[in-house]
C-alpha cells in the first residue's frame, strides 16, 4: 500500500463542519456536544481525515453526519463493536464513538461492557438524555424511577443503570461525566478523553427538550458540581470514584471521576502489533516460509 501523503494544515472549526446541519430539535443538548468535540479536535490539531466518528442509531447517533471526519453510522447498539474493528485494522486512526443512552446502555449494553474491559483506545461519548427521543419518547435505561413516558405512562418502576459505576466496574481506564451546557468544562473532558491511551468513557448530560420534562436544563443547573472544583478529589482513586458515582440528587458530580494510565490498550497489548505497523498497511500474503510450514504440519 502506498504511503498516505500527509498534508500538514492548520485545522479550523470550518474544516470540521459537516456536509449538512444537524436536524436536532432547537435547544437540544447535542448541539453543545458537537461544538465541544469540534473545538477539542481544533485545539488538539487532529487532522479530520485521521479521525473516524462512529455511531449507532438514535438522535445523537446522527452525529457523524454533522462533523467533517470519516464517519460510520452503523446499527443500533453496535457502534463499539464496529469501532473496535476499525481501531484494530488501523490503530493510527483516532476513533470516536458517539451515541445515546438507549443505544449504549440498552441494546448495546453487552458491547459496552466488553469494550471497556478490553481497554480499546477510543473515546466513547454518550449523549445521555434519559429518554428515547427518535422513537418519540419512551423510557430509557437511564430514565429515573417514577418518570412518566409513552411506554411507562404510570411511571417507571425499573431502577436506572448507573453508567459511571458500570464503567468503573467494567474496568474502563478513563471515566468522566460532562454537561453539554458547561461547554468549557466539557471540551476539556473531550480533549482529555482523546488524549487518554485506552478506553475513555464520557457520559454527558444532553437534555432532550422535547420528550424529557423531568431532567431539564433548569433541573441540572443547580445540581451539577465539578469534581475539578474539589482540590481533595483524587481521580486515580478507584474507590473514591465509585463513591462519587453513587451521588445523585441535590448534588450530581461532573468531571473526571477516574483515570489510570498503567494498563496497555488493546492494540498496545496485541503482540501482532508489536512493530506498530497497522494491519491495513501490511503485506496481504502469508510469508512463503510460513505457508510452507502450514502445509508441512499436515504431512
Amino acid at each position, binding site marked *: *500500500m*502506498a*504511503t*498516505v*501523503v*500527509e498534508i500538514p494544515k492548520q485545522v479550523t472549526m470550518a474544516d470540521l463542519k459537516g*456536509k*449538512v446541519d444537524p*436536524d436536532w430539535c432547537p435547544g437540544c443538548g447535542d448541539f453543545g456536544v458537537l461544538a465541544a468535540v469540534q473545538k477539542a479536535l481544533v485545539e488538539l490539531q487532529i*487532522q*479530520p*481525515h*485521521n479521525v*473516524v*466518528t*462512529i455511531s449507532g*442509531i438514535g438522535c445523537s447517533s*446522527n452525529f*457523524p*453526519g454533522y462533523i467533517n*471526519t*470519516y*464517519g*460510520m*453510522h*452503523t*446499527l443500533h447498539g*453496535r457502534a463499539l*463493536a*464496529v469501532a*473496535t*474493528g*476499525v*481501531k*484494530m*485494522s*488501523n490503530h*493510527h*486512526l483516532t476513533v470516536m464513538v458517539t451515541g445515546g443512552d438507549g443505544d449504549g446502555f440498552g441494546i448495546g449494553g*453487552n*458491547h459496552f*461492557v*466488553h469494550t471497556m474491559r478490553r481497554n480499546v483506545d477510543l473515546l466513547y461519548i454518550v449523549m445521555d438524555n434519559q429518554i428515547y427521543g427518535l422513537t418519540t419518547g419512551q423510557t430509557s435505561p437511564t430514565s429515573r424511577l417514577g418518570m412518566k413516558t409513552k411506554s411507562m405512562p404510570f411511571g417507571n418502576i425499573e431502577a436506572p443503570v448507573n453508567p459511571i459505576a458500570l464503567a468503573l466496574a467494567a474496568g474502563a481506564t478513563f471515566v468522566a461525566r460532562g454537561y453539554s451546557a458547561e461547554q468549557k468544562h466539557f471540551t476539556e473532558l473531550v480533549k482529555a478523553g482523546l488524549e487518554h491511551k485506552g478506553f475513555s468513557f464520557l457520559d454527558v448530560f444532553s437534555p432532550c427538550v422535547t420528550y424529557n420534562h423531568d431532567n431539564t436544563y433548569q433541573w441540572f443547573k443547580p445540581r451539577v458540581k465539578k469534581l475539578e472544583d474539589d482540590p481533595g478529589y483524587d481521580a486515580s482513586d478507584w474507590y473514591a470514584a465509585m463513591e462519587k458515582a453513587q451521588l445523585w440528587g441535590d448534588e450530581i458530580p461532573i468531571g473526571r471521576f477516574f483515570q489510570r494510565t498503567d494498563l496497555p490498550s488493546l492494540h498496545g497489548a496485541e*503482540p*501482532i*502489533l508489536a512493530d506498530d505497523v497497522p*494491519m*491495513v498497511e*501490511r*503485506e*496481504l*500474503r*502469508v*510469508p512463503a516460509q*510460513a*505457508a510452507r510450514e*502450514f*502445509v508441512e504440519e*499436515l*504431512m
Partner: protein
Amino acid sequence: MKQSFTVSIGGAAGQGVATPGDIFAKIFARRGLHVNTYNAYQSIIRGGHTFLTIRSGVEEVTNMGDRIDLLIPLNQDTMDRHLGLLGPGAAVIYNSDSIKPGAAAGGVQICPLPVAKLADITRNKVAQNTLAIGASLSMLGVGFQPLEQALTEQFKKKGEAVVAENVSVARAGYQYATENFKPFANPLPMTDKGYAVLGGNMALAMGGAAAGVKFYCAYPMSPSTGVLHWMATHARKAGIMVRQVEDEIGVVNMAIGAAHAGVRAMCATSGGGFALMSEGLGMSAMIETPVVVIDVQRAGPSTGVPTKTEQGDLWQMLGAAFGDYPRLIAAPEDILDCFRIIPEMFNLVDRFQCPGLVLGDLLLSEGRSTVDPKDLDFNVPIDRGELITSADGNGADGYKRYKITESGISPRAIPGVPGHIHTAATDEHDEDGVLISDEFTNPIKRRAMMEKRMRKVEGMEAAVQPPRLMGPPGAEVTLIGWGSTKGVIQEAVEILNEQGISANYLPIRWLVPLKGEAIVEILKKSRYTIIVENNYSGQFARYLRSETSYVPNGHIRKYDGEPFMPHHIVEAVKEQLAGKTKLSVPAHEIMV
C-alpha cells in the same frame, strides 16, 4: 467397486479416540493412500459415544463408504453397537480384559488383546489404544517403522520416556498380532504419492490466510470452532489478528469495522450464531463494505444437535437480514474446496463490495481428507477491486463514496486517506453519503441508490462459473446435489453405473448467483432427475423451483444428523426408478 480399507474406532469421549485416528490417517497418507475421515461425536467432554471412521484407498476416497473392515471398540458399548455391522473378511480388535464380544457374522475375525499382560496399564491409561494400533498395522502388512515414527512425532513434546513407553506398547501389540491373528486378505497397498491430511475447518482458515485475511474474529460455536483454533494457533506466523468476541453480533460488526478500515476480514459461526449476525450483513451491503462470513451448518433448529451435520441453513442464508441487497453465497464441495473457495469469495466481495457467505457443514468442517500438498497453494490471485488507499492520483475534489455507476460499484476510499472524507451510513444515503432517510427522504434518490446497489448482481452473474454435469451424458438418472454431498453422490453414481444403471450428477457450488438458466438447460436433457440433500424440506429443491420453476422427478433427503453413505443413495435411486416413491429418506444403520 472401489477398493478401500476402513477402520472405525469407537469409545466414550475422553477415552482417546482422536489420537489413534490421527495416527492411522498419517500412516495411510504417508503410504500414498487417500484418506477420508468422519467422526460421529456428541456434545460431551467425557462419556457418551464417539465413533471415528477412517477410510483409505489408492483411488480418491470422497466419503466414509459403506463398509467397515476393522473395528476397534474401546469399550463394551462400542462393541455392542457396531459388531453387527461387520461382514466376512472384517476383524474386530478389542481389550479382552474388559470387553466381551457378542455374536459376530460368519467370517469376522475376533481378535482379543490381553491388555494387562501386554502392557503396564497402571502407567499407561490408553495402552489398549496403542496396542490396538500396533496389532492393526501388523494385520495390514504394514511394517512397524511408520508407526514408530508417527508415535515419536505424536508424543515428542512429552519427552523421550513417553515416546519410548508408547513405542514399546505398540510393538507389543504388533508382535502379539503377528503371532496370534490372521492378516487381512489384502495387505494395505502403497503408492509413491505423499499426501497432506487436511481438515475442513483448517482448510477454511488456511484459505483465509491465503486470501490475505488480516482480521479474524469469532465466538466459539460447534462445528465452526476449528477455524478459530487454527487462526489463533497460526496467527503470528500468518500475520493475522485474531479476536474472540462477546457474541456473534459483536463478531460480525467487528469484522465489518475492520474491513471498513481496509483489511480483509472474516468470521465463522454455525446456524445459531449466523442468525445473530444477520442484521450486520444488511449493514455490510448498505455501507458497501465487503466481509466474508462462514456458516458451518449443524442440525437445527435452535440449539439443535450441535455435533451433527445438516444442510438446513440455506433459506436462512437466502433471507438473512431484511430488505433487498446483493450478496454472494457459495457452498464448498469438499475439504480442498474449503481452502479454495475463500480467496475466490474475497476477490468477489472486494470487487462487489457486499457480504459473501460460505455455507459449509459439519461433514466437511470436522472431516479430514488427503490432498496433494501442491494444491494447497497460498499464492492465489488477489483482486481488491476499486479500493482507494492513498490520495495519490485521485482527484480529491468532489469524491462521492456512493457514486452512481453503470456497474453499481463505486470506488471505495478507506479512512485515513486525505481528501476522501465521507460518512458510511446504514440509513439510505445519497451518492455523497448524506442521509436521505430522515429529513430529506426522496423517492427518486432512493430508487437510484437501490438500483445502483442491485446492478452489481449483473456483474456477479457474469463472474461465476455455471455448474457442470459430471459422468456419462444422456444417463438414465441425474442426481443433483449442493455443497458437501458431492463426494458421496459421486461414489453412488459410480456404483450405479457398475450395476448397470447409467447415472450422472450435477454438483452445485454457487447458490447466489445460482446460474438457474444453465442448470435448467442441463436438466432439460436429463431423463430422470433426483435432488439429494441433507435436510427435511428440500431447501435446495424449493429454491431451484422458486428461481427457475424447475421441478425434479424425485428427492432423496436425510435429516437424522448423519451424512449420506453411498448405499443410501444407490438404494433410493433404485426404488425411485422402480416407481415405488418420489421421496426417499434413507435410514442410518450406524447408531451413533
